[in-house]
């Protein structure tokens, strides 16, 4: 675990703050002085996991860099809902160019800052799973391979939500999207090989790769803080449930992220130079059913009859993660 857990303080380190904790032990989000990098009035849907994850991550980076940072944003929900001309919700130096070139633009910003001798200014690039795992993937791989001094954060909501929920390479098997309807003998997204970008990033043997979710704020903040201080190419992959695309209640966003991690479907870990260094253990193991059942995109697995066969395959994926990352010590 990337932070020291506090024991017996009623809620320990599970809640955002807690009046019983020392100021130093509280999260950035618990402070009134947080940057609110993504401020109110943005046009994200009710209960948007990406808006939440982005504020968590950017506020942590602002805190870690002493507010000396530049953000490059790929196209996607995050960019569209935050910056309809001429308004912006960003309270950080922020720029947007194209859907697929955010890693390359960030590399350029980092090079420019190096030329100007401003080594204290940190460069962060961010995007959704579409801009990261599909469209921007070539630029991202190049950025990793060159070990450019950029922290790339991907907010993974598992489809192209902004344009109407089309499948991306991060969409999980069996999920219904606009382009993978729940029809025919194998409804929903097909059971392929999967494309888990954190492991691809690890294959580049960059200094730091981590996964996180909006269900564990302290873990996310600790990882962003550490990554902000490191030099070279760094990658953080944050799971951000999407109430609209997943077909879930807006109040279930954090619960879904929690169930994804507690079932083992989304492993939370850190890797340094290509090797897994730490994994966050599962605290209350749940079957994948509990995660799937809350989402309309998986409704065809439960209605009209329970598709035990496909659910078993998804459970096997979770079990493989649990074994591979030793999530049940």
């Amino acid at each position, binding site marked *: 675990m990337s932070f020291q857990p506090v024991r017996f303080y009623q809620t320990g380190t599970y*809640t955002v703050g807690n009046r019983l904790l020392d100021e130093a032990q509280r999260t950035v989000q618990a402070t009134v002085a947080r940057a609110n990098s993504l401020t109110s009035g*943005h046009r994200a849907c009710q*209960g948007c996991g990406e808006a939440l994850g982005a504020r968590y991550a950017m506020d942590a980076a602002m805190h870690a860099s002493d507010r000396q940072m530049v953000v490059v944003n790929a196209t996607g929900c995050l960019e569209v809902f935050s910056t309809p001309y001429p308004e*912006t919700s960003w309270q950080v130096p922020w720029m947007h160019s194209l859907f697929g070139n955010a890693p390359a633009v960030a590399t350029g910003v980092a090079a420019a800052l190096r030329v100007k001798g401003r080594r204290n200014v940190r460069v962060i690039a961010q995007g959704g799973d579409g801009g990261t795992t599909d469209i921007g993937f070539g630029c991202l791989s190049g950025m990793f391979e060159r070990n450019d001094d950029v922290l790339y954060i991907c907010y993974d909501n598992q489809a192209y939500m902004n344009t109407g929920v089309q499948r991306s390479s991060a969409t999980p098997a069996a999920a219904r999207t606009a382009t993978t309807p729940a029809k025919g003998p194998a409804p929903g997204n097909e059971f392929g090989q999967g494309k888990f970008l954190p492991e691809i990033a690890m294959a580049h043997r960059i200094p730091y790769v981590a996964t996180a979710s909006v269900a564990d704020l302290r873990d996310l903040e600790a990882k962003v803080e550490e990554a902000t201080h490191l030099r070279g190419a760094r990658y953080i992959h944050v799971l951000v449930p999407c109430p609209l695309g997943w077909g879930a209640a*807006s*109040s279930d*966003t954090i*619960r879904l992220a929690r169930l994804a991690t507690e079932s083992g479907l989304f492993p939370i870990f850190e890797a340094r130079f290509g090797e897994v260094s730490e994994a966050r253990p599962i605290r209350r193991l749940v079957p994948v059913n509990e995660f799937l059942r809350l989402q309309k995109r998986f409704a065809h697995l439960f209605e009209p009859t329970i598709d035990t066969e496909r659910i078993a395959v998804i459970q096997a994926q979770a079990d493989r993660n649990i074994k591979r990352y030793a999530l049940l010590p």
Partner: protein
Amino acid sequence: MDKPFAITLDPGSSLANHTGSWRTARPSYVDHLPPCNQGCPTGENIQGWLYHAESGQYEAAWRVLVQDNPMPAVTGRVCYHPCEGACNRARLDSAVSIHAVERFLGDEAIKQNWQFARPPAMSGKRVLVVGAGPSGLSAAYHLARLGHAVEVREAGPMAGGMMRFGIPKYRLPRDVLDAEIRRIEQLGVTIRLNTKVEHLLKARDEGGFDAAFVAVGAHVSKRAWVPAGEAARIMDALSVLRSVELGEKPLLGRRVLVYGGGNTAIDVARTARRLGAEEAVIIYRRTRDRMPAHDSEVQEALDEGVMFRWLSTIKIGADAGAHEQFTIEKMALDENGFPQPTGEFEQIEADSLVLALGQDVDLSLLDDVPGLQLTDGMVSVDSNMMTACPGIFAGGDMVPAERTVTVALGHGKKAARHIDSWLRGVSPAVAEKHPVATFERLNTWYYTDAPRSVQQELERVRRESTFDEVVSGLNADTALFEARRCLSCGNCFECDNCYGVCPDNAVIKLGPGKRFKINLDYCKGCGLCAAECPCGAIEMVPETI
């Protein structure tokens, strides 16, 4: 006009976009009634005082506690803590050891000599309290805090009532009891000992009192019909406990039978063991699960070697003599759970038999009160604790209710509030009852796994020979730990979760002790704050559209 190419508008902030207009439900902070508070016979605000204890502010915690109960060091020891039976934490790991924290606060108050706050002004009214047991002392305390002059008249030589003459020392050390009674006296309450009130109305009128609260308890032991019993060594439980308290050593012998299944039976049997009886046998008509005595005490008695004969009644007391023979008849439970005789008899030898069959009320002092209503030999009172005679209130064991110290303390508090209203000629203020904070409302993910702290018990050999206190208290560290196990059901404890999890940055943090506020300009009504509130203190209320 210096705008870049193709730009015609000045940059603006999204703060101009009031997304609150999307909302169909708004979060609303609520305070729900924690199940512990609901379960407390004294109506303590348990969650409220644990809140202060959690941050180590023990005096503040004690001050909240004594708003309802003036004797926490006593109740922390002898109350059967229905609060813990109701505690939501029991469904997570184990209930918060509320009684242990209460006892810690009570002991700390005695150690630090904390005193009650004096009333801001005196009312000029005088109230007579008859009986210095838990309910009389509680009424006196609450009346004194409300500014009335109170005189307590006690027939016995010492104050405390059943707390002194019914509960043995090993459960309630007398220095603790004395300290808490003394503190009530220091508030300005006069306690006159050895002053029996023979005629209530006469005493009230002669003393110039404006109202009276009667709480003389139930001291007349019930007798079972045990033939030839008069000559045999047959005693009643209360006089055994009473003589032990007064320093006498009742001659019980080596083998003692106790007949009854209540807490008094257990107390007598355990006392007999301490007085040197090699065997103390409790004879009870039904089975352990049907025993009115509390299971924790049954267990402690078993640990001390007290024996039990279930499904048995005493039938015939044998010839008088040094060595007694008693006949026991075996019973069987019928389909309604009532014990029925089986006709099977058994002889059992014993030196003495103690009857613990409950107590009746001596109502003689109320002979001059007109229009009094009785129920089963007890005084009927209305929901305001007032008898059928205006201005005469009653409580404790002499009115129909469960007979425990905590219930009695609760009667005293309730009666005091209604006496106050009656004296002022106003109708009593009835606080609005909040809905109960049920387990289902909690998001238990956020609470640290923390099993209950265990209170040390005295080793067995000392429990068989001395009257030292059996169960010890918690030290400051464990008390703090235990207080922090409280889930704060239904009441905000400022964990900052709502402030953190709002994707729209629409929760305003107001600072320590001031909780939070929703910024309705931007709240989209997603409900994440309510879903992720650990203690269920946020409710989504539909907007009128």
